[in-house]
């Protein structure tokens, strides 16, 4: 048996995305041992919604069996996914949820991802103190879900004051600059909720201000960050958004292509089409264990997990 699966990635500016594709490729190769050929057509370019729609249309015209997409928009693909579904193509979104009833989502719940780390931050601060938040690209759906997640937690804790929120576009250098400016103007920051991709920068600014001991901040899941975390004794906690989500999605896709039917109650989420994956949390407690798991990987490696085929089968009848 052999399947062709199209992968569409609309942003290439990060190692996380590359690892995502690499893990998906590895998962595809692994299917060969089970006698199933999975051929991937990978479209990965820095593009906009329109460009990704172009990918999907070409996948449809090419006649792939399934499409896995890390989408640049939650809603913009509804019509084109409908066309894919009409053509009998299975569509799975990963990393960011989509509203289309013709697609399913396999990935983490970004809101919950933020809730977890925000809760860690609140606990670390003993439920008392001033926090600032540094976010990614305003208007980006994943960003907005995360914002909703931490706001929910902070609002539930009356001792926490959210001083201000700012955007640094998931850019390490901009994160560092933003943190510098915030430290200068808010002398009494106790906690920083910062998204991954900018946390290392924020920590560098905190260190430069000599406040490493006074400020707790959410962290990254990159190996080199974990190493600094351990060696410099940072106060940090990080929820894991594993790059393996696309591999998980791929395993689910192949099982579905094999004709397996989903269990009735697997879907949830805002759009009712999501299969949420577990979100590990890295804290001081399991830092060493996590680092051991990343032993031998390069510095840019992100802590990752993905569904094994067996775990994926749990979702099916």
């Amino acid at each position, binding site marked *: 048996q052999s399947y062709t699966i199209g992968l569409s990635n609309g942003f290439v500016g990060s190692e996380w995305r590359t690892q995502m594709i690499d893990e998906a490729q590895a998962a595809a190769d692994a299917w060969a041992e089970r006698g199933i050929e999975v051929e991937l057509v990978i479209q990965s370019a820095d593009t906009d919604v329109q460009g990704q729609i172009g990918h999907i249309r070409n996948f449809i*015209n090419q006649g792939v069996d399934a499409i896995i997409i890390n989408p640049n928009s939650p809603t913009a693909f509804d019509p084109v996914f409908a066309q894919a579904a009409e053509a009998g193509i299975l569509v799975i979104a990963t990393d960011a949820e989509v509203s289309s009833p013709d697609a399913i989502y396999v990935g983490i719940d970004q809101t919950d991802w933020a809730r977890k780390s925000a809760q860690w931050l609140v606990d670390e601060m003993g439920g008392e103190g001033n926090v600032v938040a540094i976010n990614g690209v305003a208007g980006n759906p994943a960003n907005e879900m995360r914002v909703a997640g931490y706001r929910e937690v902070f609002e539930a804790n009356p001792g926490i004051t959210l001083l201000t929120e700012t955007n640094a576009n998931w850019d390490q250098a901009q994160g560092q600059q933003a943190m510098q400016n915030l430290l200068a103007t808010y002398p009494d920051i106790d906690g920083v909720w910062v998204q991954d991709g900018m946390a290392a920068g924020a920590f560098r600014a905190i260190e430069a201000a000599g406040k490493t001991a006074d400020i707790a901040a959410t962290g990254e899941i990159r190996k080199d960050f974990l190493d600094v975390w351990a060696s410099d004794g940072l106060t940090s906690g990080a929820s894991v958004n594993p790059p393996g989500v696309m591999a998980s999605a791929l395993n689910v896709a192949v099982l579905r292509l094999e004709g397996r039917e989903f269990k009735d109650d697997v879907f949830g989420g805002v759009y009712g089409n999501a299969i949420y994956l577990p979100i590990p949390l890295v804290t001081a407690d399991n830092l060493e264990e996590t680092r051991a798991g990343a032993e031998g990987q390069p510095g840019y490696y992100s802590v990752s997990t993905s569904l094994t085929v067996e775990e994926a089968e749990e979702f099916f009848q």
Partner: protein
Amino acid sequence: MSALRDSLRGRVWLVTLAALVTLFLVNLALQPNLLTPNVLKSNLTVFLPLVLVAIGQTYVILGGDIDLSVGSIVALVNVVTVSVIAMTGGETGGILLGIAAGILTGLACGLFNGVLIAILRFQPIVTTFATGIIFGGLALRVLPTAGLPVPAGYWRTYAGNVLGIPTVLWIFVFALLAIAFIARRPFLTHLMATGGLRTAAFQTGLRVGPIRIGAYMLSGLFSAFAALCLTGETASGDPLMGRLLALSSISAVVLGGTALAGGRGSAFGSLLGALVIGMISNVIFFAAIPFEYQTLTTGLITLLALAGGVLVSRR
């Protein structure tokens, strides 16, 4: 060679057309079902927004200016349209109202740019970059994150047929007619004079200010059309839509043989240029290039096309 150049002078779009045909043939070799009506329609749907934005951009560039805010205009028009449709309840009347609001938004953005640049004499590049930031900010104000589906009537019409002919083809034909219409108006000669040598145009008695404003409003108008198409294509609002359109549209305009210095070129060339850009991404798609080389190949082919076009047509 020089004879070739002579015959090409003023018809640089012929070079673009040749490039387009070549790419089309390569695409055909790589994708045998390219000529089926569905695939053609699908390709046209993907290329259409850039085609429209590039046409609008051409008029600004012919007038000796540039518009970096087109991407943000597209986003703003998109969110305004979907919001108005949502507010009015999604009946046909509401849809039309939304479309009208979108078009007015595009014109207003163009007017704003034009007044700043032609009346207050701001530098076009930095000004439209700044207004782009403002329009983008407004888009996020109108719709903080992607969402707000448009009624099925809207996008089904866009994806479907009118009188047996695909809607996108109608729009494409409409764009061609609009180009032909504008090309016959004295406005275009006046615009090209303004872009060619502004002092001369002024001394000749042309109303240079209103002419440049007119070009920016055309750019805003065509950006609005592009936004309406994207709204049909995506059936929803997205405040971050279209962020790559500004630079792609400039590439398309240059590929189409229009001089960035102004005064020379044609919107028809830009239309072909936009199709060339679309075909390049198609060829990259079907050439099965490993993903880490896709961006590089696109960059190289685009640069080669730009260099080739300028080389063949240069004076």
